């Protein structure tokens, strides 16, 4: 970090970026800024480029056109989709969380590292499961384990790919509450979700994505008929309930059968 005046106000900025595999663009002319206190949900149908947008923000892929700028000192942590994980891998919860500590050479953890792992697992409410094999955990607990691993890196930005997929309704509620706390502690969060009512409607800022950014703003500005129709390519009915937008259920069913996220 240099003089205060020169420190950018954003953590990551995507400027007019186009990205694709081979010749087919998955994302076109995407512009998005993530600031230090943001809590953003990216919504869009399967294949709309949500995962590719995460990869651009992470820096694992580079845009073919446009620019992605990261604040020089920014620490980004990533929580993968549960379905991409090899659950037969022979590791315990502690071993998995400890992976975040990549700088030390010696294989075994120091006393300090053990204490750190124990502290972050306790904070996420899964301290008692530290010695369990990763497969023994429920979906919500597995998600918490990966959040613990991400937090051990002391990130300023947490990127999460579909964190509520494979998680039951109560755990989803707890998860949003937990993420809210992490965000209040000063960690910016950007997550992707296809769950409009259960997740997106509860977040402060949404991005509707379908190859490009269709709309950005609070839920009311994004979860409405015109924006959703452009994003999902089908007309959708939105009601208001207790001040929150609710997308009618027939859409949720429709989306469930669209199959696995691929891009």
């Amino acid at each position, binding site marked *: 970090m240099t003089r205060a005046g020169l420190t950018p106000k954003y953590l990551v900025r995507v400027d007019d970026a186009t990205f694709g595999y081979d010749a087919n663009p998955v994302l076109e002319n995407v512009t998005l800024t993530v600031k230090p206190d943001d809590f953003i949900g990216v919504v869009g149908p399967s294949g709309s480029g949500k995962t590719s947008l995460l990869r651009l923000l992470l820096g*694992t892929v580079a845009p073919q056109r446009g620019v992605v700028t990261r604040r020089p000192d920014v620490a980004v942590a990533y929580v993968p989709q549960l379905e991409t994980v090899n659950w037969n891998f022979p590791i315990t919860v502690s071993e998995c969380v400890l*992976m975040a500590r990549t700088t030390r050479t010696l*294989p075994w953890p120091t006393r300090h590292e053990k204490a750190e792992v124990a502290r972050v697992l306790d904070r996420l409410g899964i301290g008692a499961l530290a*010695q369990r094999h990763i497969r023994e955990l429920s979906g919500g607990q597995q998600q918490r384990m990966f959040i613990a691993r991400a937090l051990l890196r002391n990130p300023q930005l947490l990127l999460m790919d579909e964190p509520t997929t494979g998680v039951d309704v109560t755990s989803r509620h707890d998860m949003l509450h937990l993420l809210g706390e992490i965000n209040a502690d000063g960690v910016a969060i950007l997550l992707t979700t296809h769950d409009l009512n259960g997740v997106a409607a509860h977040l402060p800022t949404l991005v509707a994505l379908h190859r490009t950014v269709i709309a950005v703003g609070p839920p009311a500005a994004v979860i409405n008929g015109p924006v959703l129709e452009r994003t999902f390519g089908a007309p959708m009915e939105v009601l208001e309930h207790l001040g929150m937008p609710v997308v009618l259920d027939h859409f949720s069913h429709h989306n469930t059968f669209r199959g696995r996220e691929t891009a």
Partner: protein
Amino acid sequence: MEALLDPFQYAFFVKGLFVATLAGGLCGLIGVYITLRGMSYIGHGLSHAIFGGFAASSIIGINYFIGAGIWGLASALAINKVTRSRRIGADAVIGVITTASFALGVALLTHFGSTGPTFDAALFGSIIGVSAGDIWALVAVTVFTVAVVFINYRALLFATFDPEVADVSGVKVARTDALLMLVLSLAILATLTVIGVTLVAATLVIPAVVSRMLTTRFSRMLWLSSLIGAVCGFVGMNLSYHLDVPSGTMIVLTGAALFGVVVFLTGGRLRSRSTVGFV
């Protein structure tokens, strides 16, 4: 009992036994990473590819360890790149590259003859094919491999479990992958004369799979797999002497028998009930 100890009076057997035990342990160690990465087929293909390099270097007249080593590493890196890029069916490309290389090796050796280990020894392993040079090469490769695994323990584990997240968490995944391919190529080369190229894949896979059925911990799997590999090497080499069949075949059959026993006892399930202790 005397019959069991009988072969120990021969220096060639003691040398062979030492090499087989060490080779088994080495392959058991590397096999943990190979199987967990779903690369068992690559180990199989790579050993066949190396056979081409072995034959070519034998004919050109350079040390087969260097010739086949360069050939093997080049094949390994090519295979690794193809596998990670996911553009073409990796299995098909590996099938083409490695089988062609193997066929080339067979053609060259049949036509020109071998100046290094014999044809059969290279294919199936031989108890009498072990020279002092082979022993030193294997010891050097084993020390190097253990050092690589020790120093890069965390990076190798992370890159094996979750390469994408490892990459954004500061692990040099490409470098780690290349290092693993290097030790795999070296290990296949160093065990070529005892185990043989057609059988080495089994010594990579069997100890790792057996140890996975016995533990849920990565660190424990590493040493357990090495130990199982070493025991299979030791027992297999003894059986090879007494039954007068190529050493590689008996080492693999010993491992397969152990695999059968463990599958029977555990019902073939991978363990997920946990144990105590941190690492």
